[in-house]
């Protein structure tokens, strides 16, 4: 299941959805949130955080990431939720989750989905007036899935 939305999400709700999708034995979830990019402890009015995306393509890419994870690991269900629009420091941005009969599959699938999302899904972060630069370490994290 994938969702792109402006509103917040709730871990308990998404966890229960994964739990109810079948007898799993292992559920792993990951949540990414907005860092305090101002360094002042709070975001100022002129330092809003925004997430832009490419409507249509974003959903296609996220669906493909889920399919790839399910092809690679023995999974029962997966979840990818990503927020867009204006957010503030501490707000939740992204949730990925996977359920499986064994924990290793669920852990690895979550890492895979995040690593690929960060380098393939058309989202862009803007901190204040500054567009966030892509990181080489994110490319390296994604590339390791090509090797093994």
């Amino acid at each position, binding site marked *: 299941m994938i969702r792109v939305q402006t509103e917040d999400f709730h871990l308990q709700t998404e966890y229960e959805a994964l739990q109810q999708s079948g007898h799993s034995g292992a559920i792993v979830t990951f949540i990414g949130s907005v860092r305090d990019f101002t360094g002042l402890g709070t975001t100022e009015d002129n330092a809003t955080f925004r997430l832009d995306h490419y409507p249509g*393509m974003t959903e296609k890419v996220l669906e493909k990431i889920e399919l790839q994870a399910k092809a690679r690991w023995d999974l029962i269900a997966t979840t990818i939720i990503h927020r867009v629009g204006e957010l503030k420091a501490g707000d939740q941005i*992204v949730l990925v989750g996977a359920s499986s009969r064994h924990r290793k599959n669920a852990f690895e699938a979550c890492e895979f989905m995040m690593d690929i999302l960060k380098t393939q*899904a058309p989202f862009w972060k803007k901190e204040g007036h500054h*567009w*966030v*630069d*892509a990181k080489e370490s994110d490319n390296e994290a994604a590339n390791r899935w090509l090797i093994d």
Partner: protein
Amino acid sequence: MSNQAPHYTLLYFASLGEQLGTQSETLKCEEGPETVGELISLLTKRGESWEPLLAPTTKVAVNQTIANRETTISAGDEIAFFPPVTGG
């Protein structure tokens, strides 16, 4: 449609859209570009401010699928240009 010039929907996202001063346009031309590379050549003739399209880091998608300079395009296609992604 036969009386209309071929048209392409062009999209420019994030920092690239800001640099170019536009986020979308409909390009109409009688002799349409046949590849992404030809489209970029056409657009960069507009002036220096369009040179970010030539940057090796600039990504392109044709009809919402990642493409490259050699990808063929035809009338009615949606072609998007954007910087490296930074979600998650």
